[in-house]
């Protein structure tokens, strides 16, 4: 949502990980992801998120 982004910043919820991800996410390690992407010749998909 647009101008409610700030309000929803407080509202958009996600409480932790479910541990069943279909996509093999690397958590909080940009150098590792960058090295892997360069080695495999793939783009990086980056999800920035906040725990609230």
């Amino acid at each position, binding site marked *: 949502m647009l101008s409610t982004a700030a309000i929803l910043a407080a509202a958009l919820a*996600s409480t932790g990980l*479910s541990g069943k991800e279909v996509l093999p996410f690397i*958590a909080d390690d940009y150098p590792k992801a960058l090295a892997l992407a360069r080695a495999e010749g793939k783009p990086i*998909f*980056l*999800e920035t998120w906040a725990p*609230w």
Partner: protein
Amino acid sequence: MRAFVFTDKALGRQAGRFVWLSINTEKRENAAVLAKYPIQASPTLFVIDPAAEKVVLKYVGGATVPQLQRILDDGARAAGHGRDGRKSDELLAKADAFYAAGQNKEAAEAYRAALKGMARSSPSYARAVESALFALSSSRQHETCAAVAKDAFEHLKSSPSAANVAGSGLDCALALDKTVPSRAALVSDLARDVSEVLRGPRTGLAVDDVSALYQTFAEERDAAGDAAGKTKILEEWAAYLEVEAAKGKTPEARAAFDAHRITAYLALGQPERGIPMLEASERDFPDDYNPPARLALAYRGMKKYDEALAASDRALARAYGPRKLVILNVRADIHDKKGDAAAARKVREEALAWAEALPKEQVSERQIAALKKQLEPPK
């Protein structure tokens, strides 16, 4: 997205196409990544060409599975890894590049140019509209934002983007100064669109988006001075979220709507309605600061200030990063409401010290200035 989208097996076919990285923006050690890839809202999704560490596609906000599939396909193509033979639309690529660089004013203009020549049936049309709306809203071009939303809604009303387009457009229309001649018609037209989405089958819409739509609709009723209508919308909003939460098969899925629900309950003046779910969430996620932080909000709303402070204590023991500022602000306000100005001031001093020690990517100068202002002696 983390509770529902990334777990969807339909995304399995995408797994080998990218290297997948998630960054918790609240962690201090991630400030360097944020310096490289700045964000304005959470979540923000990026596709990055690793050779030059260049963003080739950015998407702001949550996405449903079909929306994410489109983002991934467009992103792979922009990174030179397309596999459907389709070429990137040059005008769209130009707009995406401005948007990725955070140049919202230029991006807005480029998206409008791209949309003019784009078939409404193009697979990238919805994404281009949503990005245009965010860029327009962020660059405070609210009248154009509302007009673009109004036009696009006709074409997207049956798509997963319907809620975001109608809601974003209404947000923009409501943000217009009351002296703007087009405001009344834009608000009225977009409120009708919002109502159409909420009264419709809502197929394929993300719960987050529908929830945000109720919030916007309640704000519209409030701005119109319709107290009874506003309460009716808030009641529907709370009931909708309760039904969706009850469908959750895991504690994560049930708790995913806690933030929306407490917002709705507080708006209704019924904070006590949130206590059982928040107590359950605190039991299910004992390391998470969110449930006790929300309990502090609920108890403050109920004027039970000692319970609010106890919940705030538990939240602060688990909190880290920029979110701690929000929790401290609420705590200072609870002390004020108890009539303890000295304790409130001490908490605000603590908040300022915390803010000043955060990496600059995680706190704005505006936030620090606001905290300082609160500590100035009254004039």
